[in-house]
């Protein structure tokens, strides 16, 4: 019985990891850019939400609604004025710029917000649960998972049914030809990063409500996000959700056996998948 419970908790935790991963996957899919500061941007967004709840006395959900456009602007600016300048055939410059950004963000947040653990408080929702007969699940984890499903559904709709999505796919396939058709790849990239930051804000909201956060936890979130993307297979957003669930389940099972093994178990699961399915479970893209 306990194992069913552990399994369900793991899958729900995977929803959070899928939220971490969706933004990373989006940006990589469109411009082959791996943002090493992705985890730190999630933590940054969590602090932004915290700041808004503190100053305006708002509920975290409403605060996230306010933070989202700000994060969109931050992502747009970052892409337009920094990352676009280093994108190219050579993968080294964008990696090093985002790595520098990761270190700068971490230490900037450390100075401004101190190393203290913080949390987004949502009162009763934190401990609320729903009895599903076989297992009892927390309302918050369930909401997180539902949001992950929602985000991936919406992203897929954007990708395959809107003009913006067509532009995304076009600049992803061939920026030069896309620009001949009247698109400006650089502004499409900026919109994509802005959109990724909106997802990051949502991920930050659930991260902050679920557990404590402090400026140093960004890189670990990046690693979980990355593992979810790779397990799922590049280019498949639903695969990313599955990848997140696999990491989540591995972690909850590991923790059940020995609390010290929680993180390690997630990493091992990643290696096993990389060993037997190097291209992930549901590969779509060629590169």
């Amino acid at each position, binding site marked *: 019985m306990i194992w069913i419970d552990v399994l369900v908790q793991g899958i729900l935790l995977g929803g959070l990891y899928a939220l971490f991963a969706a933004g990373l996957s989006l940006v990589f899919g469109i411009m082959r850019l*791996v943002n090493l500061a992705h985890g730190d941007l999630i933590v940054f967004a969590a602090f932004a939400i915290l700041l808004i709840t503190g100053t305006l006395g708002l509920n975290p959900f409403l605060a996230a609604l306010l933070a989202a456009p700000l994060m969109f602007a931050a992502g747009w600016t970052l892409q337009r004025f920094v990352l676009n300048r280093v994108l190219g055939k050579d993968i080294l410059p964008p990696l090093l710029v985002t790595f520098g950004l990761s*270190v700068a963000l971490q230490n900037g947040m450390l100075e401004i917000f101190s190393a203290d653990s913080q949390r987004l408080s949502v009162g009763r929702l934190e401990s609320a649960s729903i009895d599903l007969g076989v297992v009892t699940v927390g309302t918050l984890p369930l909401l997180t998972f539902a949001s992950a499903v929602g985000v991936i559904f919406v992203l897929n709709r954007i990708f395959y049914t809107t003009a913006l999505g067509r532009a995304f796919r076009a600049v992803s396939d061939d920026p030069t030809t896309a620009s001949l058709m009247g698109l400006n790849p650089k502004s499409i990239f900026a919109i994509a990063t802005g959109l990724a930051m909106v997802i990051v804000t949502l991920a930050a909201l659930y991260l902050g409500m679920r557990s404590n956060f402090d400026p140093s936890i960004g890189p670990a979130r990046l690693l979980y996000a990355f593992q979810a993307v790779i397990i799922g297979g590049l280019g498949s957003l639903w695969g990313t959700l599955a990848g997140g669930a696999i990491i989540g389940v591995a972690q909850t099972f590991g923790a059940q056996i020995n609390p010290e093994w929680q993180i390690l178990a997630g990493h091992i699961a990643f290696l096993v998948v990389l060993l037997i399915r190097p291209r992930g479970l549901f590969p779509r893209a060629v590169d």
Partner: protein
Amino acid sequence: MTHSVTTRTRASSIAGIAALALIGVGLILPAFASRSLIQDLFFILTMLTLAQLWNLIAGFGGMVSVGQQAFVGIGAYAMFAGVILWGWDPVPAILLGGLAAFLLAIPMAFFAFRLAGAYFAIGTWVIAEITRLLVAQWKTLGGGTGTSLPREATADIIGVATIADVFGLRDAAARDVLAYWLALALAVGTMAAIYALLRSRTGLALAAVRDNDNAAQSVGVDARRVKWTVFLSAATMTGFVGALIYVQTARISPDAAFSVTNWTAYVIFIAVIGGIGRLEGPILGVLVFWGLQTVFADYGSWYLLALGLLAIATMLFAPRGLWGLIHDRTGIALFPVQRRLVTTEPNKT
């Protein structure tokens, strides 16, 4: 008319002589330098070696690793294991550090090379994290809190008594001198080896693989072999450096030995600021880094924030770093790897 291919230039001949003179000065320096200077130089030399090794795999080989801390950490822990578990002398135990790093590099390369392009970077980071978590489970070496080298082991390291006698130093200072000499040997050996590699056929093959994997293979370069060789060699050397650093520190913990900031972020910043893809870059970079460290290290996170921003600014405005700027203005290359055709007119006598 005769033709010959050479990499030698006037500047490189002068640089070669200057380098030999500098090494000579470096060797006899402990006779008159203060202990704090020796410690500073130890720091500079070890960071320089790490930066050159990262530069080799990332700058020359195109394999951007963010997991170098894995090799520093495992090298240091293997040295500790040799000393604490098997009673080795710390200095020969450094060899264990290199061996352990080599052994770790095999699975790391196996997994990370499966990852496309830029995801290689995060892949190496994941393996480094896994290694840190596993080492933290190693209870006999202190688990998550770490441990120190036993006093008996550090007290009679071979050679320290002799150094103490010759220079009239106390044991602790003599240990610093020994560590400094080893760091000097590692730095010089690493740079000489990298320079020799870059001027060899393998060096050309490496550059070809970095610039275009497929094109390199089409002209007969065994891309996999070149990448594996370079990655494993760099990892082994990084393991030596890690072990040496912790012989000097004599106190270890997983968080410090596997610190991504100390052993990868700093190292990348040194290479980026000095100039990626050139041997001169990290030399210049480490001097700038040491200067910044000396002046601003008290500012803690502000300092790291500024360093991160400086690295971003360098990549945006001078992607080939300080040495790139100097090279563009003057054309000087102290360690040229570019092959030039030289034509000599026959003597008309």
